[in-house]
């Protein structure tokens, strides 16, 4: 067999292997989505968004859980992402390779892959135990701790991607670093930083373990941050494990809601960024 044919065969084999791997991954994803949709759609109704989580055997919805998830995710991002973005900025622009930066970067990598249940226990120890009870604010803090490493890492990476010449040009016009960061580097890295925020939102909005130890759950409508608050992941966890059919249906519906929300959020943010970029052309 001559070399050309052999080369073609090797190429074909490698291509097929990659293709099979890709298809396997996609098939799993499709199966998950299909299961989610087929089970979730039957539970979809207007009641989901207007009524509270019911006791077994009676009708109800997920309004308190949807509200609670929204509030805690939002608070988590509002608390966590500024810390993450600013720390990422420090690492990329000020700290560079100082001993402090290397330490922060290492700890951040550890935090990035830390099991979320540990974060939940941590907040349980320092907040829940001291307050004496579970609370929405403890849940938000746990989610914030999860959001920090994601936003920190993406911010640092994205700032490092900005061409060094752009930074030099700004300095060469007499700008101090803070000015360069705010007026040149952030705009240049904007789409990357926003993607990081989205990743963080996607990550924390589905987390169950940290909320189990902090916000717990609440069968009723509550807007008090100092009190336990319902949230989709814990409701899904609780209802899916229950023997009641109507609870299980609600759990499927809740899972579908989280998935669709994240999907819509990601897509709309991408479209928005593409539009912005087309407008400003960077």
């Amino acid at each position, binding site marked *: 067999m001559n070399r050309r044919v052999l080369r073609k065969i090797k190429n074909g084999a490698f291509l097929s292997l990659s293709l099979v791997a890709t298809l396997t991954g996609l098939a799993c994803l499709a199966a998950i989505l299909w299961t989610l949709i087929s089970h979730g759609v039957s539970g979809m109704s207007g009641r989901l968004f207007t009524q509270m989580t019911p006791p077994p055997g009676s009708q109800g919805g997920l309004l308190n859980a949807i509200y609670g998830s929204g509030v805690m995710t939002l608070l988590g991002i509002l608390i966590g992402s500024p810390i993450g973005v600013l720390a990422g900025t420090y690492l990329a622009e000020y700290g560079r390779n100082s001993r402090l930066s290397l330490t922060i970067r290492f700890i951040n990598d550890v935090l990035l892959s830390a099991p979320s249940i540990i974060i939940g226990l941590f907040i349980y120890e320092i907040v829940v135990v001291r307050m004496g009870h579970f609370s929405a604010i403890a849940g938000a803090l746990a989610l914030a701790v999860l959001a920090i490493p994601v936003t920190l890492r993406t911010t640092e990476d994205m700032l490092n991607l900005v061409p060094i*010449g*752009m930074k*030099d040009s700004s*300095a060469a*016009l*007499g700008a101090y670093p803070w000015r360069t960061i705010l007026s040149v580097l952030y705009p240049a890295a904007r789409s990357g930083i926003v993607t990081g925020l989205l990743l963080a939102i996607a990550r924390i909005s589905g987390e169950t373990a940290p909320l189990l130890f902090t916000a717990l759950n609440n069968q009723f409508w509550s807007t008090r941050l100092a009190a336990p608050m319902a949230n989709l992941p814990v409701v899904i966890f609780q209802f899916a494990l229950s023997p009641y059919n109507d609870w299980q249906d609600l759990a499927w519906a809740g899972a579908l809601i989280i998935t669709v929300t994240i999907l819509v959020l990601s897509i709309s943010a991408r479209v928005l960024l593409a539009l912005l970029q087309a407008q400003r*052309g*960077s």
Partner: protein
Amino acid sequence: MNDDSLSNPVMTAHKVSVTYGDKCAVRNVSLDIGRNQVLALIGPSGCGKSTFLRCLNRMNDTIPSARVEGTITLDGQNIYGKKQDVAQLRARVGIVFQKPTPFPHSIYANVAYGPRIHGLARHRADMDELVQVSLARAGLWDEVKDRLSTPGTSLSGGQQQRLCIARTIAVNPEVILMDEPTSALDPIASAKIEDLIDELRENYAIAIVTHNMQQAARVSQRTAYFHMGDLVEVGPTDRVFTNPQQRLTEDYITGRFG
């Protein structure tokens, strides 16, 4: 070597050495930059010409391992003195880099960036005028006057480089440094920049690093030849190119190495 100290230079470097860690990039260089003329810095790669250029507005400050010795004065004042504010210095000594790097802003905002930092225009109308004058001096006004709000990155490479020059001019510097400003551009865009450099000479002192010896011969009045961190020879461009006094210079400009 410094056979032509100028009578009234805008900048004077005296025995300047630059080291990165224990590597010496520039050794004991004394060189004047004259008013209303173009000084070309030539020499093979790694000879220290860019490093020297970047000392003139302290761009090396951003490199932690770089150490600069000797004195450099601007209008008689030591720019490495304790009282010197670096931002202020850079407003007076601007620099244009090899690769055009427009900010991710509109054409207008790119030019207005420096003036805004230094508070050079009090009213919107003043800023409009400053932007127009700067773009006009950089020979770009006619090409962009109808699309000042479009992104700077939408321009061609040559236009982007002229935008960067306009941006530098806008803060009204005395000296403009150029670090291989045309090496990323095609010949036509390069020719435009060269014409522009010749016009800018009326108002500014210019120092340009270039690898292109024809370019050095075309745009400069004085030429300095660097080799391995040393300033080998400096003199009127005509003289350096037709009658170099050092063997190294002659070898370089006749293309024997470099």
